[in-house]
């Protein structure tokens, strides 16, 4: 018997959505209390600057982390998260995060990168083109719906701390994992990052920064 725990990653092609999805799935295989892992991602023509999402679902032993429902291993087969059922949303881009608001409810913790990536058609398109909603509106909406919303410009943080904005996704992952410490064993995830990026990678620093961020603030 166990509980189902759902993580959704949203973003734009090239931001590392697929990579974060891979890390989360690999993590699910590494720890003994996660009994089953499924997931899916949208791909195809959406890759170049298009909208991308990845979902990961864990079946966790009830003792470890108590959520409201109980399931058998065979019950977790659908890779799609049901409506309102995400527990953690890693939003790499604000617009893409509210595009997938379907999954966000009072059980959700949202970690949002407020760095906006404007669609080209918005920047130089005609007047008829829909406007990019204001960041205030997006955060308000998430605040209304989610249990907790952590929003920050992770690109800027990454640029300041690590000289390059490309580590924003791993910092964000660190923040998200800290929020669910019961599930994410820091040591295991750290070793996984070493396997993936090597011993000296700045990604390790990025993860540390993210993991300790809430403490530091």
């Amino acid at each position, binding site marked *: 018997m166990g509980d189902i725990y759902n993580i959704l990653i949203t973003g*734009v*092609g*090239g931001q590392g959505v697929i990579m974060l999805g891979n890390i989360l*799935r690999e993590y699910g*295989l590494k720890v003994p209390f996660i009994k*089953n*892992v*499924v*997931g*899916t*991602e*949208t*791909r*195809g*023509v*959406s*890759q*170049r*600057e*298009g*909208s991308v999402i990845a979902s*990961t679902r864990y079946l966790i032993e009830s003792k470890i982390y108590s959520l409201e*429902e109980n*399931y058998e291993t065979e*019950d977790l*087969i*659908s*890779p*799609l998260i*049901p*409506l*309102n059922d995400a527990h953690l949303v890693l939003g790499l881009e604000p*617009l893409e995060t*509210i*595009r997938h*608001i*379907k999954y966000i*409810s009072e059980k959700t913790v949202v970690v949002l990168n407020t760095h*906006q*990536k*404007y*669609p*080209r*058609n*918005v*920047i*130089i*398109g005609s007047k008829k*083109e*829909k*406007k*990019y*909603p204001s960041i205030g509106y997006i955060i308000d*909406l998430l605040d209304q719906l989610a249990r907790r919303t952590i929003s920050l410009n992770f690109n800027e943080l990454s640029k300041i701390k690590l*000289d*390059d904005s*490309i580590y924003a996704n791993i910092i964000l992952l660190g923040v998200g994992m800290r929020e669910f410490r019961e599930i994410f064993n820091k040591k295991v995830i750290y070793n996984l990052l070493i396997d993936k990026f090597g011993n000296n990678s700045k990604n390790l620093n990025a993860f540390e920064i993210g993991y300790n961020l809430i403490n530091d603030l």
Partner: protein
Amino acid sequence: MSGNEAFARGIYESGVRYSANYPGTPLSEVGDYLKFLSETSYSFTFDYALNEKVALESCIGASWTGVRTVVMFKHLGLNVAADPLHTFPYSGVNGGMLILCGGDPGILSSTNAQDNRLYSLHTKIPIIEPATVQECKDYIKKGLRFSELYDIPIYLHVTTRLCHSYGIVTYGEIEPPKERGFFEKDPNRYINTRGRALINQKKYFEKIGQVAKNNKIFHLFNFIKAKKEPEKFEIPNDNRIGILTSGSSYSYVVQACQKLEINPPILKLGLIFPINREEICHFANQYNLNTLLVVEELEPFIETFSKSVFCNYCNAKRDLTIHGKDNLPNIGELNTEIVIRFLTQHIKIKSTPLIEEINRKEELLKEILPILPIREPTFCSGCQYRPVFYALKKTVKKLSNQLGIDFIYGGDIGCYTLSEAYPYQMLDWVICMGAGIGIANGIAQVVSEKQKLIAFIGDSTFFHTGIQALLNAIKNNTDIMVIIFNNYWTSMTGQQEHIATPREIIKKFGNKSTTDSKGIDLINLLESIGLDKSNLIISGAYNIEALERIFSSNLIKSGIRVIVINEECALEKKRRLRKQSDNKEQNKQERIYYTLTDSCTKCNECIEYLGCPAINAEYVQKEEMINNSTQGKQCLKYYIDENACIPDICPGICKSVCKNNSIKKTLINPNFQKKSV
């Protein structure tokens, strides 16, 4: 692993000797894994065939010699392979043979959503469909054994969602493949002329009849999921409901039942065709059902068959009503919410908060989603197609203003289909592979001189089904300007090799050389098929001025003209070159990038008309003096993203279109200090 990896693993475990494929979403990756396997294993052969028909035919041949084969392509590919598909089952197979075919009900990466299960109405080929990633692997072995039991091909139906899903897979035993096959002559069986075909057809139909009655096969692929034994099943009189489903829909049904906290008996079909009448009736009788709900994507395939079962063969269950597509959509993918709604229409359920919750959320979505801007996909940064479309658009604009000519663009399947999107918008139709030149053939022969035809096609598509259309245009000397993008790879599906990929750059996965062919040189081929020298122009992609000259002299000519853009896919070239210089450690190298200087006047030439995704814009807070007080103002700033720009491949197209000379080459050293060069 993903569904696609599981298929490849299944093929590895089942002792498959030969496999062929033409890449296509959602199954492209399976071919990539098998290519790797063929270069590391001595007794496995894999082929990227020219098209799906060739792939299917070569697998039929291999199977006739007694070895196991799997052929795979996307649902649309089955149309190309439909000719042999309808006849070869009469002759049957010897080694087990699977036709692994990926459907795309949500049209995520295709041109239609056709339900390939309907092919079995006239081919009678049995269909199996997995529902989980584990089953993706298991069904390969099960399917091959099934195929060998009756000497018939088996169709393995799968959809995008499952191919791109991930799950835990338990490995099975590895059977080594049979090293060599032997073709045993049997004219009565393999020559399907009139009298013989009739006899073979009868034999084949009899086999399918046997499959439908085989209870062992039924239980090998199908199972009933119910929380309780039939005898103990608590059934309120008005709520005797069972569910019939298969594939991805099964996972949605399981999830919907969890959410609704109900446990109706579910018959999960893995073998969709032919339907075992006896077993289906048994299911209905066992649970004493009065309603059967059929949950499936697209067409009412299972529904139609189960209705016919209960109308004609199952006397005891005359009172059974069957619901399916009367309440479920036959367009698009299903999901848990759609299934929840469907179930609550027929099952009386106490708890309604869930439905209210869904309704509330859907109302919110209706309010929010329409105001969000969409993101249109575009070519990669530095892509070699971009300067071509840029130059073509400029030239066409000039010529149509001068001469009043209307240019028409025939589109095809490949990356160049993205010319449809912002900012080029040069595409008038996309139907299927090869239809760019094909349809242009007809238009060009009947329109007035004021309408001129341009047709785009890529190299892989050209060899797939474009070559016939071009030959036809050459035969009639039709007024079409054909642009062939020779980028050396089947790029859109993940840079697979094809017949005209230069042999020296072909990707090496393992040590075993799988080909000693020289391949075909596209230019040599074109020179030999009746195009005279003045009508066959070969050009690179990155010189915009040269391209404009070529286009302006060729656009208004009459007769067939072919322009070959000879430039490797920028993305693949980047990966290839970086792999070669991997050891030199990228980060420590100084690299040259293009950067925007302050003299930029935001004329939008680069960002709006060229549209390279490396050139970007962001809003910055800028302080301005207005009426003697400092005020913050939102201001658009353009910049070139260093992580996206690929200066080692693209020689700076943005620099050549910039009218103000604001784009400069910049040297960046590892400490991210910049200096102009």
